[in-house]
């Protein structure tokens, strides 16, 4: 504390105070707690919050009860047909009340954007002369990667997901994400309104032990396109809307849970083509045809589908969970049928 007093900067003073508080809690007992029953901390959803695979739950991540804090590191790998998602991050649950999370996602895009990149390169000279400017679309001929950072916070408001088997009152939490997509140029090309935005959600989670079932219902208030990987909003702006999400899980064994999820997605960019320097690419259609690239035209209209997945989560112990899923994400921007396997690992400490 002497150190902190001499410090000029309020921020580091605050940090020192926080560390001192942590240190004093440690001396009062064990700050780290892993008192939850196996599996009841849930897994890490792709935005980094505690939950299922694609939906945040009302449970606070990690194994701490109200007596301590507990955190986890998570990594998710989803090789879809034309895109591959890697997402890595960390989350901490405080006193089974409050949760903070950080996740960095990268989506490497495959053949579609490669083709598009080639098209842009080919017609580049032409569009340059039309617009009178050198143009950057954010799409490279090969290996366009979309990067996004997600910061999340969640507070459990009331209710008891696990032990109140004698009533219907679920555990309810509210949370928010702040998402920063790093690909300004690409998002402009795709017609998204914003690259950074927040979203908020309310989740209700309840376990029904007599039927070995967990139900989670979430309402997310958002303008995201593909969770923000394709930015937020579209040509009509980025007004948020409420989108429902549901997870249904069956407790198969004390260390194994299977289930399905559904998350409603928006339609901000539906029917939207690709724009280069304010030019809708459909106006380039004749050019593409002369270049013998007319076959690409069919893929130049974007669409977004609701997300579905079916998962099995395995908890060999309180330090590790392994979630495998089949994700059915439908149309992602220009490419339909984006289905594929999904693997998510969570290490708790």
């Amino acid at each position, binding site marked *: 504390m002497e150190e902190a007093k001499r410090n000029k900067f309020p921020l580091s003073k605050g940090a020192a105070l926080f560390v001192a508080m942590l240190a004093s809690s440690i001396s009062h007992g064990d700050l780290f*707690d892993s*008192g*939850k*029953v*196996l599996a009841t901390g849930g897994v890490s959803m792709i935005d980094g919050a505690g939950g299922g695979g694609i939906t945040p739950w009302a449970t606070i991540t990690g194994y701490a*009860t*109200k*007596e301590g804090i507990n955190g986890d590191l998570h990594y998710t790998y989803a090789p879809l047909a034309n895109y591959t998602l890697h997402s890595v991050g960390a989350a901490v649950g405080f006193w089974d009340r409050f949760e903070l999370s950080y996740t960095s996602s990268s989506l490497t895009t495959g053949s579609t954007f490669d083709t598009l990149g080639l098209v842009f390169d080919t017609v580049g000279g032409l569009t340059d002369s039309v617009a009178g400017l050198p143009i950057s679309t954010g799409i490279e001929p090969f290996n366009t990667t979309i990067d996004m950072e997600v910061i999340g916070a969640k507070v459990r408001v009331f209710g*008891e997901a*696990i*032990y*109140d*088997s*004698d*009533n*219907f009152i679920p555990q309810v939490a509210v949370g928010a994400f702040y998402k920063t997509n790093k690909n300004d140029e690409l998002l402009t090309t795709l017609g998204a309104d914003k690259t950074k935005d927040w979203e908020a959600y309310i989740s209700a989670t309840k376990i*029904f*032990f*007599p*039927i*070995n079932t967990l139900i989670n219902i979430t309402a997310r208030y958002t303008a995201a396109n593909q969770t923000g990987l394709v930015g937020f909003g579209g040509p009509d702006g980025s007004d948020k809307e409420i989108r429902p999400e549901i997870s249904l899980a069956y*407790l*198969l*064994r*004390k260390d194994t849970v299977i289930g399905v999820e559904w998350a409603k997605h928006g339609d901000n960019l539906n029917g939207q083509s690709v724009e280069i320097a304010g030019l809708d690419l459909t106006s380039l259609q004749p050019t593409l045809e002369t270049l013998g690239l007319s076959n690409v035209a069919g893929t130049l209209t974007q669409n977004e589908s609701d997300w579905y997945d079916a998962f099995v989560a395995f908890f060999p112990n309180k330090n590790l969970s392994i979630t495998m899923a089949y994700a059915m994400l439908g149309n992602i921007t220009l490419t339909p049928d984006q289905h594929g396997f999904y693997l998510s690992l969570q290490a708790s400490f």
Partner: protein
Amino acid sequence: MKQLFRTIAITFMLCVAASPSFSQTGKTGTYPPIDSDAVEQFGGPEGVRNWVEGLFYYIMLDNRINHVFREFGNIERQIYLNTQLVQLVLGGDVEYQGASMAAAHADLGITLTQFNAVVEAAYNSCERIQLTYEACNQLIAGLAPYKHAIVTR
């Protein structure tokens, strides 16, 4: 009219009185209800007794909680009373002769971590006596609401 009002008031008071204190007089009312053959799934009263013995075996192996039982408990009495209580919450036709959960645990300052440790022992005992996970969860559902009475810290 007065009669009606009194009936409503009494019914209301009974409901309020009955729910939070959770007295040990019968099957736990859960949503959805516990299976009607739950005691049979456990192998009848004998099976329940086996499960309770297994429970205390695992409790006494767990350093997070065994000291509480060593200091304040009476294992033989607790096995006897828990065998009654478990049958009762599962819908068995028995009388529970022990203290209420609130009274029995009031002075122990039990934490949720300790309560969860007993739940983990409960699952271990289910596995040890070859009970299905589904049958085990009937019991977890039946005992879960006692959390409010037992966890006081």
